[in-house]
């Protein structure tokens, strides 16, 4: 299991750093005296860590679900910080309230003004609670739609980041039309006359993910997952037993490579060994290159052609 491997790797990381610090801080006099006991230790630890990481090339679907939910994965704020400049946040759905579990606004991508929208989960418990663990209500989807229609008006490409356990199943969410809000987004997004690129960065579960994901191109990080429902929900509906989620992962074909094979995802973005949380920078470089390539291709198409291409992409999924 990746969980145990990562635990050991993290312990080794800590030990290696500590050993290095100790070596740096060590009294030069010690070395003159021939005390080199830390050096071989360090090499052995590094070798062991690399060996562990190299065993991460063949991950199971359940491993990827674990990584997709890892608290250390880059979040929407970081993607915006690194990939875009001049981000201007826009808030509120203009009808009812501001839903912080979706972050959106205008930014520049390599100079080009774009609209960026994504699920916001937060990176610690306090933030998780504030952003409702990335589970939007209808107001979040309506805000997203407002921003997308505005992007269409001003001719800005739209880039969405998907990372949600699903739309929030709450009382108020239902009363304000969770289903209607998602349905409206699906319908309206399908007809947009500007390029839409969706990037599945973590877990993409159910209609809550799709509500930001009707795109010309879908990119997916190597260890992200995208499915009709969370594996736990899937197992509890089909087998009345959510503890069989591991089994569900294997059946659901929810990994990036599965989805690419099925023609749903256009490109899989490679992650560093052991997951994106280990090296954000390497991930951003790979994602940046892919995003630029797809955006350049799409920007050559006219509005009608973009809507047509998007319609066809979804029209041919299934039978």
């Amino acid at each position: 299991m990746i969980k145990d491997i990562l635990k050991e790797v993290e312990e080794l990381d800590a030990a290696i750093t500590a050993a290095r610090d100790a070596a740096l801080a060590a009294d030069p006099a010690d070395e003159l005296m021939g005390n080199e006991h830390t050096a071989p230790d360090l090499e052995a630890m590094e070798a062991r860590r690399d060996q562990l990481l190299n065993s991460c090339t063949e991950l199971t679907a359940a491993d990827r679900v674990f990584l997709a939910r890892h608290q250390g994965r880059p979040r929407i704020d970081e993607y915006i910080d690194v990939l875009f400049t001049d981000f201007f946040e826009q808030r509120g759905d203009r009808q009812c309230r501001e839903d912080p579990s979706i972050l959106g606004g205008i930014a520049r991508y390599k100079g080009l003004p774009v609209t960026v929208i994504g699920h916001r989960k937060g990176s610690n418990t306090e933030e998780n609670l504030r952003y409702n663990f990335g589970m939007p209500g209808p107001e979040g989807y309506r805000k997203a739609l407002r921003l997308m229609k505005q992007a269409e008006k001003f001719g800005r490409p739209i880039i969405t980041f998907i990372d949600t356990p699903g739309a929030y199943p709450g009382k108020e969410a239902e009363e304000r039309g969770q289903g209607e809000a998602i349905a409206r987004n699906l319908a309206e997004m399908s007809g947009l006359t500007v390029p839409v690129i969706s990037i599945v960065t973590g877990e993409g579960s159910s209609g809550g993910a799709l509500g930001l994901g009707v795109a010309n191109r879908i990119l997916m990080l190597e260890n992200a997952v995208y499915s009709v429902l969370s594996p736990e929900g899937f197992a509890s509906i089909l087998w009345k037993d959510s503890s069989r989620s591991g089994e569900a992962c294997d059946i659901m074909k929810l990994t990036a490579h599965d989805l690419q094979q099925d023609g749903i995802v256009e490109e899989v973005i490679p992650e560093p060994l052991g997951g994106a949380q280990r090296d954000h920078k390497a991930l951003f470089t790979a994602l940046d290159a892919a995003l630029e390539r797809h955006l350049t291709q799409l920007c050559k198409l006219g509005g009608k052609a973009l809507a047509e291409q998007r319609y066809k992409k979804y029209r041919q999924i299934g039978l």
Partner: protein
Amino acid sequence: MDVGKIFAVGSRERMFQLKARRDAGLDSPRWQPPHYFTCKKCERRATRQTWAGTLYVCPNCGHHQPIGGYYRLSMVLDHGSFKELDADVQGENVLDFPGYDEKLDAQRAKTGLSDAVVTATGKVGGVPVVAAVLDSRFFMGSMGTAVGEKITRAVEFAAKKELPLIIFSASGGARMQEGIFSLMQMAKTSAAIQRFQAKGGLYISYLTHPTTGGVTASFASLGDITLAEPDALIGFAGPRVIEQTIGQKLPKGFQHAEYLLDHGFVDQVVPRGEMKATLTRILKLHTQGRKHGA
């Protein structure tokens, strides 16, 4: 009895009426001992004949029982106008889900349906329409690739022929056994509806018990006109999931048709007995008379 009803029926209509009678539980040609059906709400028991006489609305408490696809179409479409679309489209085991093939076969044998939706053309009060009915007896009316494809084809057909579209929804949501493909049908059907409406098409969404999950979050919520059957459960998340999430009991009537009416998501709640008359009125308001600027 209307003489026309005996002589003017082709074999297509005869087959349709047989299927509708089968859905209503009245399919045996010979005499049988009375076959009883019990109201799911008040537990009132009556013969199938009695239930068919009230369109499966409980004579005691007024509860609307779920009904089969052909039976509902037989209530709505003018006699002799039914013509089924894409009857041959069937679901497949796209994920190689263990045991799904056998289950599909069993559901087909039990219901006589190819999948959870029947799509057709016909006339309602003389107005030609395209109609689709989800059937909750088949995998809870869940939307997999077959339902998504048939709905999309029906919408595209309505767009091409410039006909009004009526969809009767009854569904537990996306079909789990077809995984991500089921999820993508939400985008596919919604996109088709969007195109149809952008061209000026009229879409009447008729929500029946139960309409939940991925169907609520796609075509069922996109009607130009949205009607609902009394007491129907309509929502995105199921009530049990919500109660578990918020740790509270939900108010009485939560997510029922009347509750949605109060919260602004349904135009009117229409009892089954008035279904055809209501649809006819709406259709005529859209198809007859002068248009502004015409």
